């Protein structure tokens, strides 16, 4: 590893941070995990609720085949072991958003076992982060607190929606690694189509386990920071929590194993008030459900439908298309960006040209507008039009930037803008030579200086010829012809 390891600098020395993530990802499906009610979002309260979701007397669960498929697909995307037999257990506890008084989950025998996710850090280095397991479970409902000071109101729309809980090994050692893992996992899920990765809606959230230790010593007691759905806040929370723990330990105290929440307002983590002593969940196999049995054929059939995943794409971009690892990483990090890029390459454009235009011009513009590539005002087809004009020398790269701006502003296609504004570059050698001759004639003194060794003046001449051609001279041609005339 090329970069220096992340450390908390305490009063008595340095501390290492041990991080593990438990990510809850909402499964993309039409109906819920064990009921036929819709998954949906933004519906009125308790509209997406069946009697099963409401835990009414006599109701029974029946598993949704799509959720099984999505879990297996995700497991394969994580290079994980698929367990052909798994068991659903009841996790028993009382809470207002849990109508049955238990959550159907998987405890000892999850559907997916060990896997791995490769993360890439800012310095370009990669690390393998272990995935311990993935299991299916029900989501809980929501409590609404704002209506009344005395009562909370329970909306069960989310109750029973399928979640994949993805648990990492405690392999991460810095906030950056944790953030990279979370983002990479999100990308993989979105590539697979198994979770939409919508963080605002809480469709993907992470519980971050944080502990500290002096390098080389055994793991310390960990605390869990719950329900993080922002990378920015995750970074802050980890730093605060690790620092908090170090301060306690250096003062001679011990860490209480507890569940905490991050408060974005204060930038601090605090104990969750409602969680008391450790819950005894009394897990046991749900007697309303039989063991889930998959065949190898079933798993193989899903494997055959997997899309090219981010790591594979990145590798292909570097090895086959000649992109830099950095650019390949940036483009493959988001499925929509990769699709956009693939469309450009498939249209026949030079990969490096396409990648430059995306990573430098397009992304900058989109960031400024605060818009995702999926909502880009310029589609891949439209950018393709611009790239075609560059590649066939109709316009120079410099002019293209101007055209690009105008495409954003007007929504017009590239060719139309070039034609309307007369931006076709000059490739007529005669015209360029004429302009060069005029410039040389008007600057005899500078020509003499150049010929006597002041090479830097070449740029002056380039600029003057460009000006004379209204900026439209083909730069490569200009250079070549100018060199000839000045030699």
């Amino acid at each position, binding site marked *: 590893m090329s970069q220096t390891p992340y450390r908390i600098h305490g009063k008595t020395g340095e501390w290492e941070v041990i991080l593990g993530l438990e990510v809850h990802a909402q499964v993309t499906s039409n109906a819920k995990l064990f009921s036929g009610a819709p998954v949906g979002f933004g519906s009125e309260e308790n509209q997406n609720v069946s009697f099963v979701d409401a835990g009414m007397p*006599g109701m029974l669960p029946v598993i949704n085949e799509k959720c099984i498929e999505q879990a297996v697909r995700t497991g394969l995307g994580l290079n994980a072991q698929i367990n052909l037999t798994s068991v659903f257990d009841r996790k028993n506890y009382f809470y207002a958003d849990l*109508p049955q008084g238990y959550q159907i989950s998987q405890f000892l025998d999850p559907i997916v076992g060990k896997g791995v996710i490769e993360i890439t850090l800012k310095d370009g280095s990669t690390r393998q982060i272990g995935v311990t397991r993935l299991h299916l479970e029900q989501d809980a409902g929501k409590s609404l607190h704002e209506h009344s000071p005395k009562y909370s109101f329970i909306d069960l729309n989310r109750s029973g929606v399928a979640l994949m809980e993805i648990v990492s090994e405690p392999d991460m050692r810095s906030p950056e690694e944790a953030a990279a893992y979370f983002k990479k996992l999100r990308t993989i899920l979105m590539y697979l189509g198994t979770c939409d990765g919508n963080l605002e809606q809480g469709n993907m959230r992470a519980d971050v386990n944080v502990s500290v230790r002096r390098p080389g010593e055994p793991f310390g007691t960990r605390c869990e920071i719950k329900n993080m759905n922002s990378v920015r806040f995750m970074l802050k929370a980890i730093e605060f929590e690790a620092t908090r723990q170090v301060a306690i330990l250096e003062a001679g105290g011990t860490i209480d194993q507890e569940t905490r929440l991050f408060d974005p307002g204060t930038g601090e983590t605090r104990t969750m008030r409602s969680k008391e002593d450790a819950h005894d969940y009394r897990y046991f196999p749900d007697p*309303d459900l039989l063991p889930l049995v998959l065949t190898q054929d079933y798993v193989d059939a899903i494997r055959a439908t997997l899309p090219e995943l981010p790591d594979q794409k990145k590798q292909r971009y570097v090895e086959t298309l000649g992109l830099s690892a950095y650019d390949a990483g940036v483009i493959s990090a988001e499925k929509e960006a990769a699709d956009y890029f693939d469309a450009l390459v498939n249209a026949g454009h030079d990969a490096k040209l396409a990648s430059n235009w995306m990573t430098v011009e397009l992304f900058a513009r989109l960031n400024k507008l605060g818009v995702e590539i999926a909502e880009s005002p310029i589609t891949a087809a439209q950018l393709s039009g611009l790239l075609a004009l560059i590649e066939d020398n109709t316009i120079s790269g410099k002019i293209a930037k101007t055209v690009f701006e105008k495409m954003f502003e007007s929504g017009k296609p590239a060719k139309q803008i070039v034609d309307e504004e007369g931006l076709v570059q000059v490739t007529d050698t005669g015209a360029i030579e004429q302009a060069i001759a005029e410039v040389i004639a008007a600057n005899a003194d500078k020509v003499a200086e150049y010929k006597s060794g002041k090479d830097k003046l070449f740029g002056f001449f380039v600029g003057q010829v460009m000006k004379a051609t209204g900026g439209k001279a083909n730069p490569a041609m200009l250079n070549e012809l100018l060199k000839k005339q000045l030699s």
Partner: protein
Amino acid sequence: MMTAATHMTLAEARDALKAKKISSVELTQAHLDAIAKHNPALNAYVHHTAEIALAQAKAADAKLARGEAGLLEGIPIGVKDLFCTKGVGSQAASHILDGFKPEYESTVTSKLFNEGAVMLGKLNMDEFAMGSANITSHYGHCINPWKSKTAPEKQLVPGGSSGGSSAAVAARLCFMATGTDTGGSIRQPAAFTGIVGIKPTYGRVSRWGVIAFASSLDQAGPMTRSVRDAAISLAAVSGHDPKDSTSATLDVPNFEAALGQGVRGLKVGIPREYRMEGTHPEILAAWDKGVAILKAAGAEIVDVSLPHTKYALPTYYIIAPAEASSNLARYDGVRFGLRVSEEGDSLDDLYEKTRAAGFGAEVKRRILIGTYVLSAGYYDAYYKKAQRVRALIAQDFKTAFEACDVLLTPTAPSDAFAIGDNSQDPVAMYLNDVFTIPASLAGLPAMSLPIGLSSNGLPLGLQLIGRSFDEATVLNAADVIEREVGTLAPEGY
């Protein structure tokens, strides 16, 4: 006319309706009159649905006139309070479900109504199906229509948990009553009231809409006055239900057509471990009588062993309470039923007060035990251990069925006892289920039918246990016994 109408068997009533000798409205009214007369003393019916019944009867008469009769067209029945019946009180005889009227219909009652059955009302039971005497009901005890010759002044228990169902059928207040059986709750009350009750193979009948007690054991089944009636009713309630993941994807045989095959060559197993130390000699004598009847009819009597029998009771009393403790967590005062809460209470106060006030002592006891045996540190020693022993018990039956086709045993260790005579020791009460529990643990079909009377003049029953999904053999063997013994009826109904 009124007496004759309610005295028929279900099969006789079915034929009479088809032959237009009587209408469903007449039949229903006769039952409503009988209920008005006898129910106050028995407390079998706890919700009355006279209006619904008469409307259903009218519709049934119209269908009968068109020749479109379902399996139970126009037949008045009673429904155990454990079944969710749409718009009608369904409380599992518990205070915690006060006022609960489901907005959905259980699969079993759906099927019954589709087949034309007429619902007279909901029937008493032990709270949440936990009990063997119907003495834990929030509606008050149910009284056995039978009286002891030797102590006629005493009120006797009808058995449980389907006490109301058995009492109503025995007292001719319906032709059939739905019951549920988790550890014997159809069979034992059937024995105590001299009627027929069958617990089907686990998975034969849907559990959707049956208020859950112990999910891996609960099964709904019919209680009737004859074996034929049970066969007819069983077909009506059986069948795969996609809403129940434990429901068997098997076709439903014509159980009635399977009757009358005789038992020549049938191997009847007598498990030696059921001859328990201290069993009342009259029970053993009744058992011998059953053996003799089948032998005389050409059956081969085979001695078999079910070595883990004595461990069935403790196994059940770990597994059933464990599942119940989880199934009953939903009764919390939030979405239905009783809510006990005061200004300033926290959420936990709401839960704790509601459940303290809403559950009876037996239910609390089982929830506490169930919670304990699942708790951290005890799961392996209790629940997991019990499930291992359960596997051995199931294996015992599989092995026994290599040597025989059906098993014959007593149903209950005594005849019906008096209310108040039962011990205060919970374990003593649990011993009532000693003969019925093993078949529940193994998920096998088992039924009880009357074999005769005790010296107290009270009914005694015998149990027949069959292979998985072989209710036909069980019913057929029972039919042979019934042909010899006849049916029993208490006086005065």
